[in-house]
């Protein structure tokens, strides 16, 4: 997994709450057995005017120019700004895969759904939770100008405008995994003996599960 330390980008203001993983990547694209290639279908039903199916040439599909991701200034942005409960619904990891494939590395929201939040960290995406008033302020700034944000994970803060910043909370284990690009399976496999010891006493106690 790629390391995440700092990142500077324009933020894409997507002013909605409860954006679910069906909206992030519609079900017809879940039929792929790969982890990559989902970017062109990120927010497919909002981004295109026609109905998308796997295998289509997305570059020739009619775009919905009202949708924020289609505005030229945001095509290469890496930060997504949203409201409450982002990523609710299905556990599909195709949602963070699609965001990452598009180039999104940071999501700023008032709150995230639990499974999606976890899935982000497994893919080097940093989901940042900010208070409602802070998110409101960022939306306000972005309505008047391009909002450029510098994300500093070690210092747990985002810097924007001149000398403005918000601090954010993040779990130490998750922070460390992102900064060092750690593979969690390798970390857990270092505890192989502990797991084996656990199993021994566990199956003595709960014999019917053996």
């Amino acid at each position, binding site marked *: 997994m790629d390391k995440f330390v700092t990142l500077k980008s324009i933020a894409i203001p997507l002013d909605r*709450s*409860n954006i679910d993983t*069906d*909206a992030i990547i*519609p079900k017809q694209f879940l039929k792929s057995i790969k982890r990559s290639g989902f970017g062109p279908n990120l927010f497919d039903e909002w981004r295109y005017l026609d109905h998308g199916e796997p295998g289509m040439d997305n570059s020739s599909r009619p775009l919905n120019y009202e949708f924020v991701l289609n505005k030229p200034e945001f095509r290469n942005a890496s930060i997504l700004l949203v409201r409450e409960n982002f990523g609710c*619904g299905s556990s599909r*990891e195709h949602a963070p895969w699609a965001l990452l494939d598009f180039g999104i590395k940071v999501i700023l929201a008032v*709150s995230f759904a639990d499974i999606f939040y*976890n899935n982000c960290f497994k893919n080097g995406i940093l989901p940042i939770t900010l208070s409602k008033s802070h998110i409101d302020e960022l939306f306000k700034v972005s309505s008047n100008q391009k909002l450029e944000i510098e994300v500093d994970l070690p210092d747990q803060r985002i810097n924007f405008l001149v000398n403005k910043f918000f601090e954010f909370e993040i779990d130490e284990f998750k922070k460390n995994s992102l900064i060092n690009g750690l593979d969690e399976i390798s970390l857990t496999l270092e505890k192989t003996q502990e797991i084996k010891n656990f199993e021994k006493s566990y199956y003595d106690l709960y*014999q019917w599960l053996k």
Partner: protein
Amino acid sequence: MGRTLYEKIFDKHLVSSSDDTHLIYIDRHLIHEVTSPQAFEGLKINNRQLWRKESIVAVPDHNVPTISRDEGIKDPVSKIQVDALNENCQTHNLLQFKMSDERQGIVHVIGPEQGLTLPGMTIVCGDSHTSTHGAFGALAIGIGTSEVEHVMATQCLIQKKLKTFKIQVSGKLYPFITAKDLALFIIGKIGTAGGTGHAIEFCGNAVESLTMEGRMTLCNMAIEAGARAGLVAVDQTTIDYLKNKPFTPKEEMWSLAVKEWQTLKSDSDASFDKTININASEIEPQVTWGTSPEMVTGITQAVPKLSDIHSSKQPDFQRALKYMGLVENTPLSNIRVDKVFIGSCTNSRIEDLREAAKFIKGKKVNSSIKLAMVVPGSGIVKKQAESEGLDKIFMESGFEWREPGCSMCLAMNADRLEDGERCASTSNRNFEGRQGKGGRTHLVSPAMAAAAAVHGHFVDIREVN
């Protein structure tokens, strides 16, 4: 100080802890074709082994056709995914209920039905509705594909402790009010993020009175309230359901297990991070009117007025009504539907089909309905229903009787809504595009869906029955 049911299960599976990050041991790993191929691929690339093959049970459900299966899967992309599952199960010698197997069905229906879901277990699946299995006093959580790979390789999951949320439902549900109505009512009260970061324990008389099917419906929808897990304490209803299921322990092992299972309830002095009380007698049949399960109200009510919605939620409200093709203050019973779907991991079990059939018997699907279909949750449910003659009741009324699978709950197979079509659905999500691009979903109980099929619009099941 007593412990909650969640804490008891968590503690007995704790392998190690470092600060507030814990490694917990996983007993049962259910897999399906959509969220497992990348995990198997990851194992292969890193040359890692499966830690405990016998913990894994596989079934294809999301992509499978619900019409005759003699010709296999026509959609070549879906076929690749189901073939990949077959191949992975074969390579690793895993238990799989293939599409041709009578026991095939929706992963959250077959686990309990086969006795693969047991009280006190930790259960994971790459599917958010894994919360269903919490009905058995198990800690069941939906995970992403990276975590699927992690559990395959280590038999463990890295977890923070969830907060605990007690939802006490007192009193009695009136006739025709089902677990689905209770679940939707709760989500309407606490919102779709109301349970975020929590494991919800459902308790109280009304929950204890539910059958296992009803408890599964309730826990299934815990995720729609934002909760990672839903739980119901073990009681005699749980034990009676599990006795003699194909994979439950037998003879002395059964007695040993039952003894342990009987301890699986929150202590009377356990403290929860959050508690709410619900009065069961307040609940009427529920119908969602918007694009989030929290946009729900009773059948005697109308779509809310803009002025009744908090200003911060007005943009979402207006967007939802526009998508749904509804105007404020429309009585729910005026809403006409085009299609009716009875199925999904929420409401496709035998009891759900019985409820719908009981209403539909001797009646006809309204001529304005384009399609009314019943998709049983599993081959076993289908067989049971057929032995009771339910298939005939449905077909004689004009319903289609299909093969088991996830079907139009998420429309990954050929079953879907067309742009602008409106559906009375017993599934769990009414998100934009969930049942097909531009499709409009109203979530209801099986009997309410059956009644909408007969009348062509939503009706109060208590009035028309």
